[in-house]
């Protein structure tokens, strides 16, 4: 449980914390005094093991601390330490559970981590400046990073990827030709993907983006997700067919 003294500042803090909790696999319960003033929040998760709860709460508090000018949660470079590759599937499972529960989509960006150790800190800072605080940055493997974008559709994920690419080019002083390659996958509730399938979709897109002459950002499901909903000529014809008969 977390608590603070009374006042507008603490009310804002709790509301901020409560909102941010929505982006993590935790739920928040308000703890109020008899006069209904907010004493604190109890954050819990009833599906995950304690290690996962601890990690999620750590990220939540760290993200909050980041905007409150508190450097306690950083790894010394001004950046929150990344979840390791073995954690990414766990995090993805949790996010896919949330997709099924909320029916809000989730996007996944895999990107090359082609920087050497000297440039890594700069690259990470460039990526971080483009992320929203519910987004989760993790290491996928030695050569790739993963960014999980909860509640983000494909269009917004592509925008985010382009912003990251621009930030990397700017910060690393890298020409556009050497653009970072990215693959984006998208999951809606109706897709019923598991973590492995979701990752595989993003991996396939990253592989596509690495091919000579390919666009540096490739994404899956564009046609299915964005255009499959468009009302076709055939559908329109049937929708109005009976009206035409009435007027003839």
């Amino acid at each position, binding site marked *: 449980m977390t608590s603070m003294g009374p006042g507008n500042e603490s009310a804002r803090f709790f509301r901020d914390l409560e909102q941010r909790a*929505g982006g993590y696999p935790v739920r928040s319960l308000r703890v109020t005094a008899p006069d209904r003033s907010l004493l604190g929040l109890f954050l819990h998760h009833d599906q995950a093991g304690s290690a996962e709860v601890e990690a999620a709460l750590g990220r939540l508090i760290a993200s909050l601390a980041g905007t409150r000018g508190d450097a306690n949660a950083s790894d010394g470079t001004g950046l929150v330490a990344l979840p390791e590759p073995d954690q990414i599937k766990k995090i993805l499972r949790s996010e896919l559970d949330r997709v099924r529960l*909320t029916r809000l989509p989730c996007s996944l960006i895999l990107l090359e981590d082609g920087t050497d150790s000297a440039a890594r800190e700069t690259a990470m800072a460039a990526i971080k400046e483009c992320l*929203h605080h519910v987004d989760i940055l993790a290491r996928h493997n030695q050569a790739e990073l993963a960014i999980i974008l909860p*509640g983000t559709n494909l269009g917004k994920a592509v925008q985010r990827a382009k912003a990251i690419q621009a930030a990397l080019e700017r910060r690393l002083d890298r020409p556009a030709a050497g653009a970072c390659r990215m693959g984006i996958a998208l999951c*809606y509730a109706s897709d019923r993907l598991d973590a492995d399938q979701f990752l595989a979709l993003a991996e396939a897109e990253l592989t596509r983006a690495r091919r000579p002459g390919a666009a540096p950002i490739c994404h899956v499901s564009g046609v299915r997700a964005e255009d499959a909903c468009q009302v076709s000529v055939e*559908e329109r014809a*049937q*929708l109005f067919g*009976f009206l035409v008969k009435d007027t003839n």
Partner: protein
Amino acid sequence: MHASSDHKPMIICISSGKGGVGKTSFTVNMAAALAQLNKKVLLIDGDLGLANVDVVLGINVRHNLRETIEEGRDPASILVEVPPGFQVLPASSGVPEMANLSYEEQIFLTNTLEGITGRFDYVLVDTAAGIGDSVLWFNNWAQTNIVVLSPDPTSMTDAYALMKVLNTRYDRREFFLMVNSAKSKKEGQAVFDNMSLVLGNFLKIKPSQLGIMPLDNSVAQAIRNQRPFYLTHPESKASRAISEMAVALSRL
């Protein structure tokens, strides 16, 4: 009837795709009809950026959902009780940011709303027009989706497009159709039958018919008077249609 704290309300989302087909009027009158059946009803104005449930009901609201989302105000403190005994959760008007809630705000709103819905039997959500994020989100939050349409090609296209998006992207398969402003029962039935045919042919889904609301002068008159026609013109054709639909909903 008293709903217990662990009671699960029926959450019903009312949408149309196109604006101006009578969605808010239908929702307000349905809330009144269900309240007269002694049901505990909460009407949420789901048009978060251009709310007008309060306008249709002729009530002046001091607080709205914007304060809940932006300032953490307890939603129970902004509820307004209106005759014949249902509660309204008003939203803001003229605030574009409210029409585009972030992921966190949507999750926050879900948690907040679920904190107050347990005391009701029915929660009706009157959404905005269109197929924006908040419309899709409210439709997914609800267990029951009502789509209002009229015998107008643009209304039919938009209603179909809304159901297609909800079905294709979110796997929603059950829709109740309410045909509004029908010149005759025959016309209303033809609209329903045809929409049902198209949904079956292309999306393989079979909608249910909630009802047909006939064209009725009392509807426009009640809107101008900012009162539900169900209360001002209880014997009108429109009120009788609403009664039948309320009974049908209460039997689900």
